[in-house]
């Protein structure tokens, strides 16, 4: 914990200057200021990103050099095994990799870091509706992190039932003897992350509904805010289901209930279970949360990329309303597609057909959004800076992830590719390819608002270049491994002759992953370096339109020097009404422009 403390106050070493006199602790540690909390989340999650990345490299090492001891770090990390990765340890590695990345990186960095920092600034509020709740939402992350680490380091080998934790493997301690206590820690950790997210969600919804500046109507909100709003709703409705399921699983493990355990199982030569439960129940409950959760892991990035692309192209966002509606459609449909994770699970085959159709339909709003992003760049005036590059990479890689989704949505095809590396390719394209590149862009874009300085462009481009190549080199071949029928979560796929010849390809992927991992140090270095040596900037370095750009960089306590009033939508770039190529939402024009300029396009 102390590490994070010291890092997080370093991080806002120069975010002060304004505001009332406050003690150091209440200003930087237990702060109720949404900006400080946002930055605390950002720094914490970036550190967790490195932890999750290291775990991934462990997985990759084993796949490239099975059973060979890892040079340098091997002895340090798992000395007991002579630097080798045992199958138990391997199982734990991919479980914890996914857990850290999903619960401690992607979800909190989107909603916790950017949601917190941006919502009040973009809607013109002085803070969140419930600042103390907001602070608690950050501090509840720490017990969760503690639980996951306890799980990682507890006797045996850590939680090892995958991030999906399907019972009976996760419900009966004897099914995975090495993960005894670890699985309990893991479940408590997930619950605590849920508590943290829920506090955030309630806050975001209330703030967005109630605290918008005068004139900030719903349809003048930037897409980032729409995305955060919809995400918060998704969280609030889906999360309780996971929490309940988690408690039931804990009860099965510790109290002897049998929600998920049927009778008569003989596991690891123990006595037969008494049971009466249903393992499929867990899958339904888990995916009822976790499918919406994959959109929780994407929508905010979609929103931010929309804002960044319009700004980069100096052009209004193409199809603002279709963008909003398609986001809402994704969220709505997101609640009725969970069964696509269970096509081979033995559920009623009629469900396979229904879920296939709804899943195909959810690809539609994704397609609409992609076309609108391309439309936004179309006819724009763009410059290839780091923000542009990362945003374009988002679109480019999201296309791959969305398209591979169609294979898996098709039930008969999914019979074959389910639980192979094809799935792994799919979700890395959407989560790494789309979300993470969107986030990198967002870090570069809003950094000046956070710290009053820009991040270094050269380093930013180098980071982008290597990350993009590394990511594609790592994840693209996974599609082929999937087509070849390589199951996921295998410690040694080469045991099976039909997969033997994929060793060289896996080695190539591991080298790419190492490249990508190393490139992240460029980001961390840039992040820290620019805080002190970055180019100083004024309020609006990107010539953007949003309310956040009218506040000082960094904004003081209370954000705005005068209460902003909003006169128009956020995307009036290159408007013929003004000389410059941007038009702040707060700028009053006389005579006033139409409240909601709806111009017929010149051609189409």
């Amino acid at each position: 914990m102390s590490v994070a403390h010291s890092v997080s106050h370093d991080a806002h070493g120069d975010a002060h200057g304004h505001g009332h006199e406050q003690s150091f602790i209440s200003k930087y540690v237990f702060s109720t200021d949404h900006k400080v909390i946002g930055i605390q989340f950002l720094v914490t999650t970036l550190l967790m990103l490195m932890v999750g990345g290291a775990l991934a490299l462990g997985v990759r090492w084993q796949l490239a050099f099975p059973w060979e001891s890892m040079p340098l770090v091997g002895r340090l990390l798992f000395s007991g095994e002579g630097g080798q990765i045992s199958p138990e340890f391997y199982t734990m590695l991919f479980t914890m990799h996914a857990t850290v990345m999903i619960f401690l990186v992607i979800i909190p960095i989107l909603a916790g870091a950017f949601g917190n920092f941006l919502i009040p600034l973009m809607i013109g509020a002085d803070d969140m509706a419930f600042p103390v709740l907001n602070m608690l939402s950050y501090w509840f992350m720490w017990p969760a992190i503690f639980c996951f680490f306890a799980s990682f380091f507890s006797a045996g080998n850590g939680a090892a039932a995958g991030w999906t934790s399907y019972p009976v493997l996760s419900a009966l301690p004897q099914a995975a003897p090495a993960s005894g206590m670890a699985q309990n820690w893991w479940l408590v950790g997930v619950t605590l992350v849920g508590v943290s997210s829920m506090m955030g969600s309630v806050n975001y919804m209330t703030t967005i509904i109630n605290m918008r500046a005068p004139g900030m109507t719903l349809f003048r909100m930037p897409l980032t805010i729409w995305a955060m709003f919809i995400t918060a709703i998704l969280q609030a409705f889906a999360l309780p289901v996971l929490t309940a399921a988690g408690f039931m699983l804990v009860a099965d493990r510790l109290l002897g209930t049998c929600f998920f355990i049927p009778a008569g199982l003989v596991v690891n030569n123990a006595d037969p279970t008494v049971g009466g439960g249903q393992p499929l129940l867990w899958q339904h409950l888990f995916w009822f949360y976790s499918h919406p959760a994959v959109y929780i892991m994407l929508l905010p990035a979609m929103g931010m990329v929309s804002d960044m692309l319009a700004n980069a192209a100096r052009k209004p966002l193409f199809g603002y309303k279709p963008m909003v509606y398609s986001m809402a459609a994704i969220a709505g449909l997101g609640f009725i597609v969970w069964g696509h994770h269970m096509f081979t699970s033995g559920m009623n085959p009629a469900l396979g057909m229904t879920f296939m159709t709804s899943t195909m339909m959810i690809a539609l709003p994704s397609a609409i959004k992609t076309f609108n992003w391309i439309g936004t760049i179309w006819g724009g005036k763009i410059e290839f800076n780091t923000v542009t590059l990362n945003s374009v990479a988002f679109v480019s890689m999201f296309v791959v992830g969305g398209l591979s989704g169609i294979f898996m949505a098709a039930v008969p095809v999914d019979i074959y590719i389910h639980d192979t590396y094809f799935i792994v390719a799919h979700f890395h394209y959407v989560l790494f390819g789309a979300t993470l590149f969107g986030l990198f862009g967002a870090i570069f874009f809003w950094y000046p608002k956070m710290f009053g300085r820009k991040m270094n462009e050269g380093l930013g481009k180098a980071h982008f270049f290597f990350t993009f190549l590394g990511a594609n080199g790592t994840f693209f071949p996974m599609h082929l491994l999937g087509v070849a029928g390589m199951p996921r979560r295998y410690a040694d796929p080469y045991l099976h002759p039909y997969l033997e010849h994929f060793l060289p390809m896996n080695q190539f992927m591991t080298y790419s992953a190492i490249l990508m991992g190393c490139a992240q140090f460029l980001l961390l270095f840039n992040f820290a370096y620019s805080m002190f040596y970055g180019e100083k900037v004024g309020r609006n370095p990107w010539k953007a339109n949003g309310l956040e750009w009218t506040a000082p960089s960094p904004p003081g306590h209370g954000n705005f020097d005068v209460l902003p009033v909003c006169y128009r939508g956020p995307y009036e770039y290159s408007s013929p009404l003004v000389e410059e190529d941007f038009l702040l939402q707060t700028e009053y024009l006389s005579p006033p422009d139409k409240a909601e300029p709806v111009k017929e396009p010149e051609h189409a």
Partner: protein
Amino acid sequence: MRWFWLTFFIVCPIAAVVFCVIAPGMDWWFPSEAGSPLGERIDSLFNLILYIVTGTFIGTQIALVYVLWKSSKKDDERAWFSHGSHNLEVIWTIVPAGILLFIALYQMDVWAEYRVVSKFPKEARKAPVAEVMARQFEWRIRYPEPGRILQIQQQPTDLYAVNELIVPAAKPVMIYLKTQDVQHSFFLPELRVKQDAVPGQIIPVWFEATEPGEYVLVCAELCGWGHYKMGARVVALAEEQFEAAMEELAEEQSDDGFADAGDSDDE
């Protein structure tokens, strides 16, 4: 720099396409031709989607780089002040919706034949060849004695094997899939069959190996540390050989080691 990045964004998708085009030649593709009639149909559905998706991929990546190219060369001109196009929105909603719906409907038959029990081939449904029971970390097979029908309950005359499932080739066969402990998944890559074995359930699965031969059987659902080593095989034999193999197995299991006797139970 402009040309560098434009090239970058076009070379990467091209590399991806090239990679896929050469993949079958490099043996980076399906482990073999589909070895079952249903598998062939799954492959053709896969290929259909592959064509649609590749077209869309190339189209969107070209469009992306095209708009980047056009919009990065403006010098003094202002960007096009446009909030979008109603007509385009309609087009790019309806066209993909039609395609997606078509893909969905087009898949239904194969799925129904694969999974809806009443649509299973009759001969397979009447006489399941074996029960496959997964456990950490092996596959236990239970056959009925030749001439008998497999019962859900174990019978004293049943025959047992581990990690080798013998089935008749060139005709549809059905097995009962279950698990003794945690969840596993019965995956035959060459035959394009996958079905989870769920604790507490007995799931009928049918498939047909067109040609006699050996097929890989692996586990596709995380079942513990030894998940990766649950390899086994399915041996498809021509009808007579299959019967001979069953007889042989029966013989072997009733053999108590004495040369003369032959009437003892199985162990």
